[in-house]
C-alpha cells in the first residue's frame, strides 16, 4: 500500500506541476498576487509529493520488497543496510527520482524565499521550474518508472553492482545532482527575466547565491566522483576524460563563467545579455550531460544501463528546453537595456577574459566529446578522442587563465591600473619563482614543465593570500587594526580568496603528479618492490569471506629507504557472489599528503600481478577542490545577498497568523 501510495504521489506531483507551470506565469502577466502565490503553493505541494514518493521507495529498499522490479534489480536481502539505502539512487530509475526530488526541493526553496525575491520574478521562475519538473516527471513515469511491480515476486534480488557498493556512492551522485539541478534555478531566473523583459542588479543579486550553491555542490560532486574513481576502479587515475566525466565538467565550466559574469552584473549592470545566455547554457549543458550519460550514444567506461528509448525522450526534453530557452533569448534579449561602461583593463575586463576562456574551454570539451558522435553520423567511422586532446587544449586555455587570475583580483572596477596590480603581486611572484627554483633543486626526475606547474600553483595560491592581505594590511597599519579590518571584509571577499587559493592548491597537486611512479611486477609472499621512496614487501595473501563477497587480501609492509616502517596496507581482489563479479579494491596508505597505492591483478605463474603507484602530494588535488567549494558556500552566506531576506522579528503579524 505504501509503495502504491508513493507511486500515486509521483503522479499527483506531475498534475500539480502542470498547474505550477501555467498559473503563476499567468498571474505575473496580470499582476495578480493570489495567482502568483498559487505557484508557491504548487511548488511546496509537489515537493511534499515527490519527497513522500522517495521515502516510499526507500522504505521498499529497506524492507527488501522484491515485488518492485527496481528493488529486485538493484538490491539483495543480505546487503548492508547503508547500501540498501544508497541503492535507491544507485540505478537509473532511482537516480532520476532523486533528480526530480532535488528539482522540487529547489523549487520549494524559491517558493519560500518570498521576501528576498521580487514577486513577479519568483512567479515566473516557479513557472519555468514547474515546466522542467513536468518534463522530468513524465520521463520518470513513462520510461523509467521505479515503481513498476513484479508478480509473483522473487525471493532474492540481483544485488547492486559491486562497484557501486561504496560510501562514495552515498555522497557523490546526490552532490552532483544538487549541482546540476541547482543550475536549473539560474536557468529559470534567466527565462523569468526574459519573460518579464526586466533584468538588473536585483536580478543578479537574487541569482548569485543560487548559482554559488549549485557551483559549490557541483565542485564537490565532481571532486568526490574523481576521488571515488581513483580509489575504487584500481587504475590509479583520477580523471579519464571519459564522456561521463566531461558531461559533468562542461556545466561546471559554464557555471564558473556564469558565477563571474553575475558579479559584473551585480556590481555594474554590464554583460546582461551574456549573463542570461550563460545561465541558459549552463543548464542546457547539464541536460546534454544527462542525455549523454543516459542514452548511451557515446561508449563510455562507465556506461550504466542505457536505453535508446530513454535517450530519445531526453533528447526531446533537451530540444524543448534548450530550443525554447534560446528562442526566448533571441526574441527578448535585444530589449534588455545596456549596462555600465568599463575600460579594457579593469576588473570587468579581467572577468570578461575569464568568461571568454572558460567558455572556450567548455566549447573545446564539448567538441572533443561530441566529435566522435558527429563523425560517426557523417561518415560512419567510430573514433575516440583521447586524453591527449583534452590535456593539450584545456591545458593551453588554463595556462593564461591561471596566470591572469591574481592580476584580475588586483584590478579596480571600471578602470584598473595594470602596473599597480603587478607591483602588488611582486611578493607572490617572487615566492613562486623561489618555489620553482627549490623544486628544480630538490626534486629528481619528472618533466621540465612540472616545476613550472608548481610555480603557477604557488603564484595563484599566494596571489589569493595577497588578495586578502592587500586589502587589510598597508604601510604603517598596526597589526590589530589590520586584523580587524581583514575580519571585517565581506564574506564574499573571503569566499573568493578561499576558492582561488583552492585553485592554486589543486594545480600544485596536479603538477606534483609528474613525480609519481608506477611499477608493474609479479610478486609472491616475501617479494619486495620499490614504490617511489618506499619499499613494499608482500607479506602474505589471505582469503576472507564476508556477507556478500569473498576476497583475497594481499598484505603489504612498507618501509622507508632507511629501513624504518611506514605502516602496512591491504589490497584485495573481491568476488561478489550474487553477480559473480570480481572487483579490485586498491590498498592505499596515506603518508602526509602523498599516497602509496597498490592494486592486485590476476594470479600469474610465479605469483600474483601487482601494480604499485607512488602518488606524491596527490591529496592536494582534492583538498584544493574542498577549498573551492568551501569558498563558494562562504560567499553564499554574504550579508549583501541576504539583504531583504526574511528576518524573524520583522515578519508581520498578519502573515505569522496565516
Amino acid at each position: 500500500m505504501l509503495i502504491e501510495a508513493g507511486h500515486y504521489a509521483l503522479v499527483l506531483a506531475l498534475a500539480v506541476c502542470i498547474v505550477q507551470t501555467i498559473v503563476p506565469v499567468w498571474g505575473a502577466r496580470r499582476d495578480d498576487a493570489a495567482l502568483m502565490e498559487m505557484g508557491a503553493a504548487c511548488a511546496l505541494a509537489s515537493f511534499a509529493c515527490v519527497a513522500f514518493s522517495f521515502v516510499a521507495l526507500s522504505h521498499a529498499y529497506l524492507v527488501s520488497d522484491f515485488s518492485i522490479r527496481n528493488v529486485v534489480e538493484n538490491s539483495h536481502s543480505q546487503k548492508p543496510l547503508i547500501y540498501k539505502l544508497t541503492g535507491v539512487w544507485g540505478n537509473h530509475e532511482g537516480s532520476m527520482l532523486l533528480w526530480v526530488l532535488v528539482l522540487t526541493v529547489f523549487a520549494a526553496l524559491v517558493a519560500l524565499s518570498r521576501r528576498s525575491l521580487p514577486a513577479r520574478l519568483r512567479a515566473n521562475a516557479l513557472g519555468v521550474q514547474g515546466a522542467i519538473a513536468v518534463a522530468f516527471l513524465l520521463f520518470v513515469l513513462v520510461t523509467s518508472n521505479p515503481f513498476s511491480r513484479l508478480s509473483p515476486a522473487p525471493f532474492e534480488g540481483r544485488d547492486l553492482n559491486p562497484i557501486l557498493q561504496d560510501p562514495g556512492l552515498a555522497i557523490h551522485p546526490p552532490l552532483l545532482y544538487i549541482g546540476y539541478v541547482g543550475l536549473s534555478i539560474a536557468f529559470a531566473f534567466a527565462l523569468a527575466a526574459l519573460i518579464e523583459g526586466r533584468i538588473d542588479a536585483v536580478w543578479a543579486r537574487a541569482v548569485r547565491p543560487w548559482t554559488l550553491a549549485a557551483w559549490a555542490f557541483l565542485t564537490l560532486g565532481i571532486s568526490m566522483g574523481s576521488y571515488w574513481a581513483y580509489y575504487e576502479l584500481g587504475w590509479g587515475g583520477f580523471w579519464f576524460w571519459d564522456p561521463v566525466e566531461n558531461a559533468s565538467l562542461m556545466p561546471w565550466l559554464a557555471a564558473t563563467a556564469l558565477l563571474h559574469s553575475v558579479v559584473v552584473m551585480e556590481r555594474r549592470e554590464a554583460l546582461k545579455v551574456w549573463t542570461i545566455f550563460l545561465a541558459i547554457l549552463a543548464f542546457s549543458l547539464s541536460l546534454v550531460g544527462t542525455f549523454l550519460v543516459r542514452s548511451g550514444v557515446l561508449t563510455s567506461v562507465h556506461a550504466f544501463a542505457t536505453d535508446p528509448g530513454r535517450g530519445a525522450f531526453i533528447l526531446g526534453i533537451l530540444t524543448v528546453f534548450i530550443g525554447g530557452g534560446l528562442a526566448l533569448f533571441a526574441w527578448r534579449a535585444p530589449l534588455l537595456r545596456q549596462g555600465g561602461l568599463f575600460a579594457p583593463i579593469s576588473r570587468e575586463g579581467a572577468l570578461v577574459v575569464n568568461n571568454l576562456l572558460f567558455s572556450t574551454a567548455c566549447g573545446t570539451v564539448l567538441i572533443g566529446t561530441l566529435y566522435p558522435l558527429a563523425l560517426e553520423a557523417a561518415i560512419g567511422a567510430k573514433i575516440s578522442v583521447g586524453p591527449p586532446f583534452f590535456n593539450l587544449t584545456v591545458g593551453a586555455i588554463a595556462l593564461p587563465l591561471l596566470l591572469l587570475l591574481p592580476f584580475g583580483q588586483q584590478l579596480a572596477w571600471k578602470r584598473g591600473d595594470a602596473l599597480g596590480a603587478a607591483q602588488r603581486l611582486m611578493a607572490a611572484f617572487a615566492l613562486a619563482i623561489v618555489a620553482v627554483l627549490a623544486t628544480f633543486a630538490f626534486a629528481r626526475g619528472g618533466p621540465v614543465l612540472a616545476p613550472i606547474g608548481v610555480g603557477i600553483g604557488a603564484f595563484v595560491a599566494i596571489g589569493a593570500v595577497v588578495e586578502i592581505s592587500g586589502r587589510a594590511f598597508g604601510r604603517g597599519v598596526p597589526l590589530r587594526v589590520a586584523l580587524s579590518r581583514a575580519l571585517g571584509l565581506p564574506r564574499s571577499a573571503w569566499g573568493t580568496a578561499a576558492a582561488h587559493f583552492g585553485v592554486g592548491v589543486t594545480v600544485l597537486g596536479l603538477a606534483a603528479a609528474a613525480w609519481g611512479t608506477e611499477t608493474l611486477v609479479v610478486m609472491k609472499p616475501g617479494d619486495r618492490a620499490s614504490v617511489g621512496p618506499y619499499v613494499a614487501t608482500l607479506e602474505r595473501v589471505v582469503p576472507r569471506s564476508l556477507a556478500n563477497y569473498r576476497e583475497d587480501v594481499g598484505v603489504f609492509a612498507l618501509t622507508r629507504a632507511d629501513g624504518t616502517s611506514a605502516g602496512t596496507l591491504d589490497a584485495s581482489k573481491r568476488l561478489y557472489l550474487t553477480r559473480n563479479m570480481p572487483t579490485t579494491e586498491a590498498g592505499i596508505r596515506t603518508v602526509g599528503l602523498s599516497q602509496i597505492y597498490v592494486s592486485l591483478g590476476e594470479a600469474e605463474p610465479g605469483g600474483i600481478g601487482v601494480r604499485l603507484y607512488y602518488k606524491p602530494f596527490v591529496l592536494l588535488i582534492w583538498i584544493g577542490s574542498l577549498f573551492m567549494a568551501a569558498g563558494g558556500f562562504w560567499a553564499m552566506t554574504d550579508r549583501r545577498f541576504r539583504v531583504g531576506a526574511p528576518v524573524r522579528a520583522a515578519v508581520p503579524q498578519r502573515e505569522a497568523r496565516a
Partner: protein
Amino acid sequence: MTIWIVFALMTGAVALAVLWPLARVRAAPGGSAPGDEDLGFYRSQIDDIAREAARGLIGPAEAESARTEAARRLIRARAAAPAGPDGSEPALRRRRAASAFAISMIPLVSLGLYGAFGSPHLPAQPLEARLTVDPTQLSLADAVGRIEAHLARNPDDGRGWELLAPVYLRLGRAQDAASAYGRALSLLGPTPERLVDQAEALVLAGDGVVSAEARKAIDTALAQAPDMAKARYYRALAMEQDGDREGARAAFAALARSAAADAPWLPMVRARLAALDGTATGSTADPAIRAMVESLAARLAAGGGDAESWARLVRSYAVLGEREKAAEALASARRELAADPAALARLGTLATEFALTERR
C-alpha cells in the same frame, strides 16, 4: 478499496494546499494591490540596508550605493504599478478560472496516469513478512525461494545445496542444479553419487549433450565406483556423442546385461541400443503396443487426462525410442497440469530419467 480512499484523501489534500493562497489572499482586508509586492520588496530592502549598516555589517559606502540603487528601483516600480482594486470583476473571474483549472487538472491527470502505470491490486510484500509464512502454505517455488534465501545467508551449508539441487532439477532449472551440486561437491567433498548427479544436471542443462566438464565428473566417479550404472550410462552416451558408436554399443550392451530385470532405467538403455542399431523409431515395436499408445495419446489430446496417464504416455514414447514425440507429450503434459505442482515434479523426474529436454 482502502487504497482508493487513501488516493482520494491525498488528492483532496493536495488540491486544498494548491488553492489555499486564493482563499487567504482574498480574505486579507482590502487585498493587496498589484505591484505591491515589488514595492514592499524594495522598501524592506532599504530598511534592511539601514539596519545592517547601523550594525556595521556592511561598510557605509556600500550601504549608501545599495540604498540609492534600491531607492531608484522603488521609484521605478511605483511608477509602473497599475492602480485598480483587487476584488475587481476580472480578478475574480481569473481566480475562478484558476481554481477550476487546478481542481479539474489535478484529479484528472493523476488518476489517468496512475490508471496507466499503477498496480493498485498488488500489496506490499516485505521480505521479512514473506519469510515467516507457514511452510505448509508455501508453493514449491516459494519454498525454493526460502531455501535460496537461507543459502544466501549461509553459503557454506553444503547439505542445503545438496537438498536444493534435485529440487532445481525437478523444476527444470538444470543449470542451477548443476551449480548447486558443484557447491555441494566443493563443500562436502566428492562422492561418486554427487559427481554423477552433477554430471546429469550438466547434461540436462546442455540439452542432452555430455560436455567435457560432465565427462570429467563421470570419469572421476567411475574411477571410484566402476559399477555405478548411472555413470556407465552417461559414459556410454558420451561415447556415442563422440562418434564412437561401437564402443557405445558395447558399453550399453554390457550395462543392459548387468542390469536386474526390473531396473527402471533398463528401457532407456534398450532404447539407446535400438537407436544405435539403426532399428529405432518404433520399427521393432509391437504394432499392438503402438496402437495402444496412439489411442492413449488421442484420449489425452481430447483433454482431462490425469498425471498418471500423461506420465505413462511420455514413458511409452521414450521407451519406443520416439524422443521427439516424448518431448512433445512432456510439453503438453506440463501445460495441462500446470496447476498441479506434484504432477509437475513427477514430470520433471520423468524428464530427468529419460534425459528428455523440451525445446522452448
